[in-house]
């Protein structure tokens, strides 16, 4: 079999290994190749030209053009050997090609399980008597990387060859194909380029490239692979993402440590500088960390390394020294050091010239304009929608959510619901996929969001869904989408047969109506939608309460409450009247389910449309009726234990009704009451019992209008301060 020509140098590396990066950098400087081949998808060759404008960590993002959500990343950190090759080729204007299997053949395909069944480094480390393969590689390979890069590369190749021979049957079809593709690319390179060629690939693949058999076998192996149109770009990446296993190569546990090793390699002060940085991290959190302690930590790490026979302290030694000296044996501060230093939060940058989808470019423009940089660290924000900048920000975050880019998360626990919004914002580099996928919807964030919302409005088949789309459209301030959602709502409402469904969509609509004006949507437009729903629901309500089971009745009660609130909040007088009439008709029905009927009675009594006497009469009637009586009382009282204990009017109503019962009627009513009250929690029942025991003596005197002006003003001032009102 023909040997590889002398002018080809094979560098077997460990992905994201700083030692391998040093080896690659030193070998490049020594050999000055005319062509560099790097393990990676050949479709990305066109993107190599942009390396100069990138600040690592960055990642190649490639996706299927017809289905942008099918995507994969190839991340590179500053200490990645591949990145060193990219940088060198860019600086010296030497052609660089990616020579792995085409992404078209791998995107969306499942990895074969046998590919990962053996761990080449693990086996070598075991043979050398190390328990941790990473450490073995670090000690044996990475520490001596720069001194004799070519000799080291040869040693790695030999070791891997021995391993590959032993485990030949463990190599999967996928790996064989990838290596066939690599050989094909190598042949092409040899044909086209005269000078030396440098190959940078995972150490495991080196043995497969040592010899070049006839091209026929390789092209046969590569036949029939799926073909897709692939496009891609560079996206910023983060150390935190690098720590997760994703995309290409294995995830690495300590990118921050590796970056530190890489940065301090020339100065040779990796360990002291590490502890100085650890002290800074601890001090930032107000934890004691003196320079004297840092000195002791360096000494301990050195002593540990010497005891273990290591050339210099590794991550294990510095972590143990940090724990024993700087953290006083306590795990909690150590975890802080781990998160901030060992993993790190560094986010890369992609320069202006790099091609990206118009949508991504628009997003970046907006991020700059709204001074909302993408950051990997979570940040809390409070947006005042009355300010233009904050409103634009909110609009952007909302639109991105519609596009499935969850950059911001609304914080409901902290929200005041009016003109202020609380957000938690954190950019995860993998959101680049969602941005790429959303690019098919439009060229700007606004247009894409509008397109998605209109599509959703068209697809909506239920009132609740249409209502949701309408709400989102208002939040996104997209008039076309609002109109489309409005039409969808009408369409769904007309088709809806269930009054409860119509009524339950009301509350969110009502709050949208109330605050819609802040968002630049005409409130009248929404109000008319609300009125339409309310009118339709009101018509259907009485009918909907007949012949229903208990579960449906439960939903009806919820719908009644929702509609009542919404009508009070946002409807005009005419439609409130329509709603009231519907409730009255429901109450008048003799065969309605007890729960909604009881609830409606209560609502009408509260609004003064039914007087106390007629309510008492209804309660009497409920007791005398057999079926549905419990439900009526339960519906009347549901969820109002606290109110019953506190509201004298309601308490008096129930009290008068009960004491007015004849002994027989009372005995009849007892089980009903028991069950109705049984829905209350035990604490509520106790409060209620206390109230009954106290009798009239606790009856609160009605406010007299006679108060101390000074004290009231002091209290009012305090409240104003709390709510942030100005006057």
């Amino acid at each position: 079999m023909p040997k590889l020509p002398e002018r080809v140098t094979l560098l077997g590396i460990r992905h994201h290994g700083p030692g391998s990066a040093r080896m690659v950098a030193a070998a490049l400087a020594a050999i000055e190749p005319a062509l560099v081949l790097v393990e990676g998808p050949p479709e990305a060759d066109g993107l190599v030209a942009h390396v100069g404008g990138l600040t690592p960590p960055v990642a190649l993002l490639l996706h299927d053009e017809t289905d942008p959500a099918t995507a994969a990343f190839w991340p590179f950190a500053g200490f990645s050997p591949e990145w060193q090759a990219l940088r060198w080729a860019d600086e010296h204007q030497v052609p660089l090609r990616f020579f792995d299997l085409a992404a078209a053949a791998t995107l969306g395909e499942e990895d074969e399980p046998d590919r990962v069944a053996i761990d080449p480094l693990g086996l070598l480390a075991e043979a050398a008597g190390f328990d941790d393969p990473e450490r073995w590689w670090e000690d044996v390979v990475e520490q001596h990387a720069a001194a004799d890069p070519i000799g080291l590369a040869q040693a790695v190749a030999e070791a891997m060859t021995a391993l590959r021979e032993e485990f030949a049957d463990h190599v999967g079809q996928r790996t064989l194909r990838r290596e066939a593709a690599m050989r094909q690319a190598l042949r092409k390179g040899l044909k086209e380029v005269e000078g030396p060629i440098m190959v940078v690939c995972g150490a495991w693949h080196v043995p497969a490239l040592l010899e070049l058999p006839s091209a026929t076998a390789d092209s046969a192996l590569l036949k029939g692979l799926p073909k897709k149109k692939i496009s891609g770009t560079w996206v910023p990446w983060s150390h935190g993402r690098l720590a997760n296993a994703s995309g290409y190569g294995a995830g690495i546990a300590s990118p921050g440590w590796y970056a530190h090793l890489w940065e301090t390699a020339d100065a040779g002060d990796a360990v002291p500088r590490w502890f100085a940085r650890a002290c800074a991290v601890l001090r930032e959190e107000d934890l004691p960390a003196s320079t004297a302690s840092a000195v002791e930590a360096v000494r301990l790490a050195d002593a540990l390394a010497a005891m273990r026979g290591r050339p210099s302290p590794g991550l294990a030694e510095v972590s143990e020294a940090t724990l024993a000296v700087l953290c006083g044996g306590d795990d909690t501060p150590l975890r802080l050091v781990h998160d901030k230093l060992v993993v790190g939060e560094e986010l890369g940058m992609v320069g202006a010239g790099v091609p990206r989808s118009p949508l991504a470019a628009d997003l970046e423009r907006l991020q700059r304009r709204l001074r909302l940089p993408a950051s990997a660290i979570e940040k809390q924000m409070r947006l005042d929608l009355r300010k233009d900048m904050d409103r634009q920000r909110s609009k952007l975050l909302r639109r991105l959510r519609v596009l499935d880019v969850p950059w911001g998360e609304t914080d409901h626990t902290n929200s005041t619901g009016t003109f202020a919004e609380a957000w938690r914002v954190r950019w995860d580099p993998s959101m680049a996929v969602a941005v790429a996928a959303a690019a098919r919807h439009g060229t700007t964030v606004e247009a894409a969001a509008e397109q998605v919302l209109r599509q959703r409005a068209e697809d909506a088949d239920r009132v609740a869904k249409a209502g949701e789309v309408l709400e989102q459209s208002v939040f996104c301030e997209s008039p076309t989408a609002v109109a489309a959602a409005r039409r969808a709502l009408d369409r769904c409402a007309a088709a809806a047969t269930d009054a409860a469904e119509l009524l339950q969509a009301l509350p969110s609509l009502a709050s949208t109506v109330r605050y819609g004006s802040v968002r630049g949507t005409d409130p009248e437009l929404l109000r008319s939608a609300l009125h339409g729903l309310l009118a339709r629901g009101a018509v259907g309500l009485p009918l909907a309460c007949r012949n229903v089971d208990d579960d449906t009745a439960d939903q009806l009660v919820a719908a009644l409450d929702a509609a009542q609130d919404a009508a009070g909040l946002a409807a005009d007088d005419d439609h409130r009247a329509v709603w009231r009439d519907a409730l009255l008709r429901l109450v008048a029905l003799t065969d309605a389910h007890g729960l909604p009927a009881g609830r409606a009675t209560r609502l009408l009594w509260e609004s003064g449309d039914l007087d106390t006497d007629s309510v008492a009469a209804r309660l009497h009637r409920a007791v005398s009726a057999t079926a549905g009586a419990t439900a009526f009382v339960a519906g009347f009282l549901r969820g109002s234990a606290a109110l019953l204990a506190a509201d004298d009017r309601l308490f008096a109503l129930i009290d008068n009704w009960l004491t007015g019962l004849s002994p027989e009627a009372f005995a009849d009513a007892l089980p009903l009451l028991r069950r109705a009250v049984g829905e209350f929690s035990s604490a509520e029942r106790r409060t209620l019992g206390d109230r009954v025991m106290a009798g009239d003596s606790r009856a609160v005197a009605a406010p007299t209008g006679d108060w101390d002006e000074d004290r009231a003003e002091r209290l009012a001032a305090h409240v104003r301060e709390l709510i942030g009102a100005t006057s």
Partner: protein
Amino acid sequence: MTESVLRPSAEQQYAAELEALAAVDDRPKPPMWRLSPQAVVRYVLGGELSDGTKITPKYVGDRRIVEVAVATLATDRALLLVGVPGTAKSWLSEHLAAAVSGDSTLVVQGTAGTSEESVRYGWNYARLIAEGPSEAALVPSPVLRAMRTGAIARVEELTRMPSEVQDSLITVLSEKALPVPELNFQVQAVPGFSIIATANDRDRGVNQMSSALARRFNTVVLPPPASEDAEVEIVSSRAAQLGRALQLPAEPPALEEVRRVVRVFRELRGGSTVDGRTQLKKPSGSLSTAEAISVITSGMALAAHFGDGKLGADELASGLLGAVVKDRVSDTAAWQEYLEAVVKERPEWRDLYRACQDHDLAGYA
């Protein structure tokens, strides 16, 4: 030597192992150390030497912990071993001192009544009055003696001492010197001197260390045994060693008896059964591994002197009861509940259940 004392010190009991280690030790030794740091680690963790000598493991647990401890001493820093009671803090400290300086007897025991004299120096008052202040009238503390000879001094239960006595160590640790103002000179520590202190972070009645003192220690936390198997190994090997030392004629304990005791301890300590299905009341005691060892050894003693020489359920029952029930009222309830809910339900534990019930009827319940 081991014949004549109740509990020989570590360097006496393992003199042969230490000698064998020193014979084959070719690594560089820090000044005044008897062994190289690697050999100390091997002495503590056990193993086999090139000449075939077997070194028994003294500490069963994470190798890294021992390495950090030894490296700390090698950098002449003071070492603080922290952990809940019974995690072998004193045990490890004794063996480290024995291996490093061949002397584990320079001990200050910390109690609420420990005075500054036992940490620094005292006076021979007869001499002081007769001759006036002189070096001959000075009574050195173990710490002072260790400073002069370049040995390891041990401070047991550091946080039980009053804070001001603890703080008298600060000068010793930072200046490596102890001034004696009465005589107008100071004792300067010889290379090899260091301090191993132990402290426990769970007990009541401890005096928090000042941060000035804490800063001068490297802290190593000793965790409770990670798994049931590890704990069984500790208990059975220690009980066998103790049995030898106490000249118990009983056979070494059967592994399943040890396993039973360890399981009872782990379950009560953790508040639930190993399968996680039954929630248990936690007794007030710490139920440490050390106590499990003493349950086994006392059981062995009972078996040897009053039984058939074999450790069985009857012998374990009394020891278990004593170890679990520290507070008559609440712990008795927890123990009874455990017996009824767990021990009784395990068919292979019926003998233990019966034995424990007999004991309860006899005295406690």
